[in-house]
């Protein structure tokens, strides 16, 4: 059994993410960071330690293409400045930080704060614009990326040319999903 400190950052802990997190918590010393109406900690299920970070209204950006693109990415929500401060101050407590969904502002603005310990499960949508800021650099930053399948991998690699970032094919459920994720963590820590 792997017992190392892992932080999972996700916009929601609803199914199927919740089941995946619960399985993760049986294999790792896991904490989960997620947005909520108010800040606080709670335990859900048997052993899922959850840190809630209050959401806020993202700052508006109107000045130029770059700032507008950044503003659009923030506006997708949820916007959680306290989570970013948490990563800034507390990242060293975790051996690895797993980010779910590239499009979530939690990932797009949180992952660049901890690239040296970041694992990305991008969950790319069909209509994703991967070339716009802040996403274009995002796929070059993590220690390892877990793609759902080869279609997603090819899509991301074609759009961002990030072939040099180590990866595994990882699903949230299904047979072999846990073993694939464990390989991904090992890749991130040792590759």
């Amino acid at each position, binding site marked *: 059994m792997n017992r190392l400190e892992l932080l999972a950052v996700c916009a929601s802990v609803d199914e199927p993410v919740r089941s995946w997190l619960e399985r993760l918590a049986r294999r790792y010393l896991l904490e989960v960071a997620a947005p909520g109406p108010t800040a606080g900690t709670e335990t859900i299920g048997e052993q899922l330690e959850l840190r809630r970070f209050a959401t806020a209204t993202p700052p508006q950006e109107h*000045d*130029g*293409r*770059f*700032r507008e*693109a950044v503003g659009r990415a923030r506006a997708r929500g949820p916007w959680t*400045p306290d989570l*970013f*401060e948490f990563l*800034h*101050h507390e990242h060293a407590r975790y051996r690895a930080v797993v980010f779910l969904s590239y499009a979530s502002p939690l990932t797009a603005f949180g992952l*660049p*704060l*901890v*690239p*040296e310990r970041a694992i990305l499960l991008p969950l790319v949508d069909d209509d994703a614009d991967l070339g716009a*800021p*802040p996403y*274009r*650099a995002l796929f*070059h*930053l993590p220690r390892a990326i877990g793609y759902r399948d080869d279609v997603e991998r090819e899509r991301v690699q074609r759009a*961002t*040319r*990030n*072939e*040099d970032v180590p990866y595994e094919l990882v699903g949230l459920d299904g047979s072999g999903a846990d073993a694939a994720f464990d390989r991904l963590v090992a890749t991130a820590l040792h*590759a």
Partner: protein
Amino acid sequence: MPDPRLLVVAQRYGDVAGGAELHARQLATRLAGAGVDVEIATTTARDYWTWRNEFPAGEDRIDGLRVRRFAVAAPRAPEFRRAERAAFAEGHSLADERAFIEAQGPVVPELLDFLMREGDGYDHILFFTYIYYPTVYGLPLVADRAVLVPTAHDEPAIRLTTYRALFHAPRAIAFNTAEEREMVQRLFRNARIPNEVVGVGVDVAPSPSAERFRAAHGIEGPILLYVGRIVESKGCDELFAFFTRWRELAPDAHRATLVVAGHAEMRIPDRPDVRHVGYLSDAEKFDAYDACDVFVMPSRYESLSMVALEAWAMGRPLLCHAECEVLRGMSRRAGAGLYYRSFAEFAEAVELLLSDGDARARLGARGRRFVDTTYTWPRVIETYLDLFAEVRARNRS
């Protein structure tokens, strides 16, 4: 096949003072000479402190290369020092860091928009200096074709969280020294990013003359030389204090003149054995190297000291501060200098170097050899061309 296209992004460019800016210009010019289609994207600022808009915005041509200048939207903020203190304080916030980067400037949103619009038209984009706004916000916009020349040294800013992504995003990193690479890889665990220790080439001015320098400034006897901005942050206050104390310990035995060349941003001791010769032209600077017995670099924070390399190229020994990891490491590897961390060590090193001509010559000769084998333009250009070829290969469809 068309020449590969390179965009050089630098916070200032052209006839401006500054080591990184000179480095960018020399490199851009020489890469153009090696068959690379080079353009420059920079600001309209001449002064690194105010970032005041002094050059016209729009297109310019320097050394035959197209230079695109973008207006600075906000100069260095009046509250910059306060923002810097807040960002460097224990327990500071991300908001403190962002406020510091914006306050430091130069804030050039139009340069970022240009990179978003036109970045894909270049095969590679070379970003100079990790610390300023154009690199912090510009490099992630074109990460897949970015090559970073961080010119990093061990300073509080490099430990800010906001800079972390910069050292993981580029396609390649060009370091100035092995010491810089070691520090960056220790701080960021980013050894997987392709990188090379490249540095710069050293050009020695033709026919340098010690006699010409001594005659022009009326200086006799042994000379300790410093060239650069004369400012506390370069350690000049300590250098003046150590030198005057050493002289006053034995005024008759400790004979030497401390010559400082460059723009003075602090008070220089008013005494006959400390001579400020102002800003020197390239030819005058090499006359000064030729005239000096020891070249002194008191700065604790250098990623590469161009003037130290030039002094070595002229066969002069280096005396540097031991807390400057880069220069201490280079001195060790080259076997071409001494270092000090206290007045006692400074005094001992100065006395040894001024009294033992053989030791001086030996150290100087090793410095010249070190520069001749490491910091030559053909090697520098060839290494950059290799890095660029790797970037293109990774982006090829």
